[in-house]
């Protein structure tokens, strides 16, 4: 039974979100001055005063961040579908990627909502405002724990891709493992009020944040390349005479 010609455009759009959301989110959060976050070492009064000052702009930052983060999920979907092409009938890593990526999606948007609620009523008891501030930022950065699982899933799948034409380049597996490691310091955020491991510190905030944006852009690029490979493979592309026939992705690997 012939299959209809494959239309990969929705996949491409999903992957393209990986280019867009880091820029949107960073613009929203840094542009409005919401990041870097006010220090956990500040007093409740200082935090409350910060929320009272120009609070509409800060609300815009959090709301904009939440909206921008809405585009985080589609990238995971595109990566998942390409990982299905690697794993075929035992798509453990692809589904782990899906679950972990979705969880990261949730755990980044919910804190933005919490911070919106924190900024919503700046004249309340400062201690409550400080709690909302701490809750939002600690959740935002510690929420990257499932992202580390996502990185491992992608790495394992890529390293186990033994086909003649791998879906993703092998070095991307090692890149993902490295990115996952870089997020390890985020785990210690709740232990620090000063220094580089706080939710505004260089090791637990700056590096993971910037690297996450880089990860998204790199994965968007290589996922789109994989999607186009899939399109060529399934629709048959006469321009690539040495391309393996459809179904040949399961061919034996060449000896090292």
């Amino acid at each position, binding site marked *: 039974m012939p299959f209809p010609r494959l239309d990969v455009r929705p996949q491409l759009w999903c992957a393209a979100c990986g280019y867009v959301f880091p820029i949107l989110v960073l613009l929203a959060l840094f542009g409005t001055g919401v990041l870097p976050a006010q220090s956990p070492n500040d007093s409740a009064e200082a935090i409350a005063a910060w929320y009272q000052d120009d609070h509409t702009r800060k609300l815009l930052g959090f709301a904009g961040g939440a909206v921008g983060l809405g585009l985080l999920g589609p990238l995971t979907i595109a990566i998942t*579908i390409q990982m299905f092409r690697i794993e075929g009938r035992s798509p453990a890593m692809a589904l782990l990627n899906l679950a972990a990526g979705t969880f990261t999606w949730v755990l980044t948007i919910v804190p933005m909502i919490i911070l919106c609620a924190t900024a919503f009523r700046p004249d309340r008891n400062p201690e409550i405002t400080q709690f909302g501030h701490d809750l939002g930022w600690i959740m935002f950065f510690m929420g990257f724990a499932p992202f580390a699982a996502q990185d491992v899933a992608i790495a394992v799948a890529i390293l186990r891709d033994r086909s003649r034409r791998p879906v993703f380049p092998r070095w991307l597996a090692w*890149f993902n493992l490295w990115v996952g490691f870089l997020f390890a310091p985020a785990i210690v955020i709740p*232990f620090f009020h000063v220094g580089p*491991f706080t939710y505004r510190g260089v090791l637990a905030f700056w590096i993971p944040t910037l690297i996450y944006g880089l990860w998204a852009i790199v994965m968007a690029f290589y996922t789109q390349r994989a999607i186009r490979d899939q399109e060529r493979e399934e629709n048959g592309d006469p321009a690539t005479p040495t391309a393996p026939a*459809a*179904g040949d992705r399961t061919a*034996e690997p060449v000896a090292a």
Partner: protein
Amino acid sequence: MRPFPIFLEPPGGTTAAPSGAAAAAAQPTAPRPRAGQRGWVPGEPGLWVFLLGDMTMFGVFFVAFLVQRGEDPATFAHSREALTVAVGAINTVVLLTSSLLVALAVRAHRDGARERSRGLVAGAAACGALFAVIKVAEWATKLADGHHPDSDLFFTYYYLLTGVHFLHVLIGGCVLTFWLRRLGRAPRAGEERVVEGCASYWHMVDLLWVVLFPVLYLSAT
């Protein structure tokens, strides 16, 4: 009824077999250079993205520690005195020895001496286990002396840096175990690359400690 969702099947349906003729006609990828040949990379090139990246992360940690030290030299100098330098030095020698055994194991593997290679890797794993035991004992004594991760910033860094390194040692233990099990099975194509990769990771664990030891234990004021 389809047994699997449509996108899990190979294109052309489940009854289509991979096209043998097309597979044979496809260009084979060039084999990677081996040790001693031009352009050789131990393990595989992508692995070094990870290794050098990991080393860079530690580099940032080292600098962060020293910056923090500069902001409170008195506390850092005082707390550093509480560390037992000899223990750190012993651990350095233990890891250096394990690296030697790993390097010898790789050479033995290239010589075809599989059993000897296995013994050397087992020896390296034993050294790794010894390092871990010494480290845990060191932490236990420091904790018993009242030096907790939140005692002061020096000890925060001490437990954090040695802890992250310890995590790498544990992963290294898994890597060495994987290597040992691989050696227990029949030789396969591409094995030398895997062996080199495992060895490179372990050497990285060693060299990170080689820097960590003087930075943490020996940086006097």
